[in-house]
């Protein structure tokens, strides 16, 4: 379809602003080149976005088992609550006494999330998971620095970790030490013991891990790190499997981040905004980014900057409206609903895994948590049909494919996370669809290489895009 710039013509416009009601003035230092933006009537703009929306696949369009992304249903009441003028129209620099409702919302969300994670303090400034990781790592840095242990320069990260873990560590000035996973997909304890030392600043781990398994040695893992003088950082990406069942704080983790846009049902917005609050144990609270909320002497709420704060990682207090959505979700589920969601996320994953493993090899056997990893290695060896082809084939089935080629330690990986908000019928249908596709791949591999054929565009040439990047429209 056409781009905004290829529609309309000079002179078309929308009438938005009334004329200026004071004498018109103009600055001196004017731009030289005329600004070029689209010239469109409202009909054209509105239709353009209607058409664009048709070419997007959202949570409401069907099954979305994108592993590690926790694509659960986004409740409509949450959207309505975040749109309330009492939140959306608040200036972030209003006096505290005019925003007590917003502050209480932050404080209560903080409290609930601390209880769920076993942490003692929380800050909402990070705007996404990776942003939270970076924040947490800076806190580790500040902690060691305060203790005079500047030699702690290394962060240990398992080889199954999300790419954000090593990247965040690097941004925080750390050297990354990768520890291999054992054959069971869990941290290899011996290798871990070899890796730690006086230079260990900390460990980053998600548990359940990225192959969908709960690392049962978790207490030993965190003890090894602590014994070496390091801190343990919990990547909250997979919290959905265990919330209300076990807590990172009780596993020995010192700092965590959460993904409100995954675990707590806030929508993903096609890539953002997210919200990646960071929580920590009491001893580390002084390093949290600022401002954090506080209770004032008169019982009202306000903001303050922690004593040894690492500083701000973003303007103001984080993606507030996303937090409103998570708050509404927490109120809805409550004490019983939170673990119930976790249990059903795990049940749905195991149910679907059971159906799929009848014909498709799994990377790891046994009970999984909220997600599992299939491998198309066998299929590829036999037919040439790769994980990518299967993913594209699923597009023609009208379901969103699993995450491809992650974690890196599994060859031809497809990582499936159904979430708790999917019905049994949806899982059954997806399993049948996948079975049929797998069968077709065995029988007629060439056909799958052609997939997708029912989508608005066919398979796109990513190599070409990267080789000669065209990142904008060029006017004639």
């Amino acid at each position, binding site marked *: *379809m056409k781009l905004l710039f290829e529609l309309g013509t000079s002179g078309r416009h929308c009438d938005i602003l009334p004329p200026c009601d004071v004498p018109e003035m103009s600055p001196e230092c004017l*731009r030289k080149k005329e600004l070029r933006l689209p010239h*469109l009537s409202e009909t054209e703009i509105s239709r353009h976005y209607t058409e664009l929306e048709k070419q997007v696949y959202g949570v409401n369009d069907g099954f979305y088992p994108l592993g590690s992304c926790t694509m659960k249903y986004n409740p409509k009441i949450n959207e309505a609550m975040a749109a309330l003028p009492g939140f959306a129209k608040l200036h972030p620099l209003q006096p505290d006494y005019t925003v007590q409702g917003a502050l209480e919302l932050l404080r209560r969300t903080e409290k609930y999330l601390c209880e769920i994670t076993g942490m003692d303090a929380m800050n909402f400034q990070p705007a996404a998971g990776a942003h939270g990781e970076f924040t947490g790592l800076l806190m580790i840095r500040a902690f060691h620095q305060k203790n005079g242990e500047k030699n702690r320069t290394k962060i240990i990260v398992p080889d199954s970790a999300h790419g954000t873990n090593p990247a965040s560590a690097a941004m925080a000035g750390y050297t990354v030490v990768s520890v291999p996973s054992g054959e069971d997909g869990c941290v290899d304890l011996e290798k871990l013991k070899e890796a730690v030392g006086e230079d260990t600043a900390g460990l980053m781990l998600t548990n359940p891990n990225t192959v969908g398994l709960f690392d049962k040695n978790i207490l030993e893992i965190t003890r090894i790190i602590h014994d070496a003088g390091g801190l343990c950082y919990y990547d909250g990406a997979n919290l959905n499997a265990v919330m209300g069942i076990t*807590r990172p704080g009780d596993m020995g983790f010192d700092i965590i981040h959460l993904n409100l846009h995954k675990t707590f049902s806030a929508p993903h917005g096609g890539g953002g905004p997210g919200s990646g609050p960071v929580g920590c144990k009491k001893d580390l609270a002084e390093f949290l980014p600022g401002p954090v909320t506080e209770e004032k002497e008169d019982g009202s709420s306000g903001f303050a900057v922690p004593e040894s704060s690492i500083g701000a990682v973003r303007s103001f207090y984080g993606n*507030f409206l996303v937090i409103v959505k998570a708050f509404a979700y927490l*109120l809805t589920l409550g*004490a019983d609903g939170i673990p119930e969601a976790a249990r059903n996320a795990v049940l749905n994953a195991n149910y679907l895994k059971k159906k799929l493993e009848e014909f498709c090899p799994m990377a790891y056997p046994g*009970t999984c948590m909220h997600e599992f990893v299939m491998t198309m290695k066998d299929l590829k060896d036999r037919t040439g049909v790769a994980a990518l082809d299967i993913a594209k084939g699923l597009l023609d089935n009208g379901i969103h494919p699993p995450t491809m080629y992650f974690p890196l330690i599994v060859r031809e990986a497809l990582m499936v996370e159904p979430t708790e908000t999917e019905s049994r019928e949806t899982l059954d249908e997806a399993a049948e669809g996948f079975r049929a596709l797998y069968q077709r791949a065995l029988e007629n591999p060439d056909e799958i290489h052609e997939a997708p054929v029912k989508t608005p565009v066919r398979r796109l040439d*990513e190599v070409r895009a990267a080789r000669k*990047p065209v990142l904008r429209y060029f006017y004639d």
Partner: protein
Amino acid sequence: MGTYIPNTGNEQREMLEEAGFQSFDDLYTEIPECVRLNRKLDLPEGSPELSVRRQVEALAGRNRIFNYIFRGAGAYNHYIPAVVEEVASKERFVTAYTPYQAEISQGILQSIFEYQTMICELTGMEASNASVYDGASAAAEAAAMCTDRKRKTVLASAAINPGVYQVLKTYCFGSGNRLVPVPEKNGVTDLKKLREMLSAECACFYVEQPNYFGQVEDVETMADIVHEAGAKLVAGGNPIAMALLRTPGECGADVAVGEGQPLGIPLSFGGPYLGFMAATKEMFRRLPGRMVGETSDAGGNRGYVLTLQAREQHIRREKAGSNICSNEALCAVRAAAYMAVMGEEGLRETARQCYSKAHYFQKKLKTAGLSRVYPGDFFHEFVTRSDIPSRMILKKLEDHGILGGLPLDETRILWCVTELNTKEEMDEAVRIVEEVAGS
């Protein structure tokens, strides 16, 4: 208790059985007993929708909404056209994930491609990324783009938004770069000091246009000075101002960044906002985060994909230039829709009205006894000084439903005026200030 689980208790039991489990507990046998919570969470009981709505609405009701706002300082009150709200509420835009599967994500990809194009036009730069968290983190990421092993010092004007300075500082704490403020003089960056402070270790200099005090900076001259020293110029800027003022590109900036909130994003108590980043041809491969590129499909039709991913964390891991993953895609779509609705003339008009009204208000305030602190041109913010305590003035305005400027200290206030402030309300505000002054 509210729930979003479709399957009934019966179904859950059947599914457990089919999957080979006796009970939910069986699913969790791998979790050692000693780390199990084994008690109920200390949270309120879950609530049905109506109760949730009542609780949240009650909290929203405890916030005060000001109809008249003269406060900016990093968050700006602009008009958001109805179409823009509608676009940003479209269910699929709201609920989709990052467009990893391009074939079913052309709508988001094309929107972002359009956004990137408009950001380039606005900034005068050659390539834009798909957004980062906000203006402050955009500045910090831009500084990181410019540093290398030899050049590890980041200079930043003392006249930039202090919130941005804080974030720059935090990011530098991580990277081990050195952040040094370049002093301000008369409300703008001291060019002489800048020249003096530049050295072979300096990676870049960061300045904002207009700056925190609303003043127009001489960015062109700075670019010359900075480039002479072999460093880069990172130009932060207000996107509305860019419709009118000399663009970062025209001034010679290497990277342009800014807070995109003024482009159709509500104040929202500070977020979600939008960090935009654009760079020259020489620099764009160092931009962090997602970028959307044009390509073609198997049938030769035009299409869009996430591209240049080799820069990113999920491929390069610790060698990536940044860890950014989720960005502010929906805010970028919103900003693109805003720019499309306003068009070039509409955006220029918005900028002109901001400028004209701010100057009108400043003159009026002056006659009311609030003199301007700094000389030189300003865009839509300015600082006043007065003998009357700032908080007295602001309190009185609040009593009349007006959120006045931001108090910088007991005597100085940073005011902001946008196209939404009418002459009538400005005159009313001035009248109130006069009252305070007269009493």
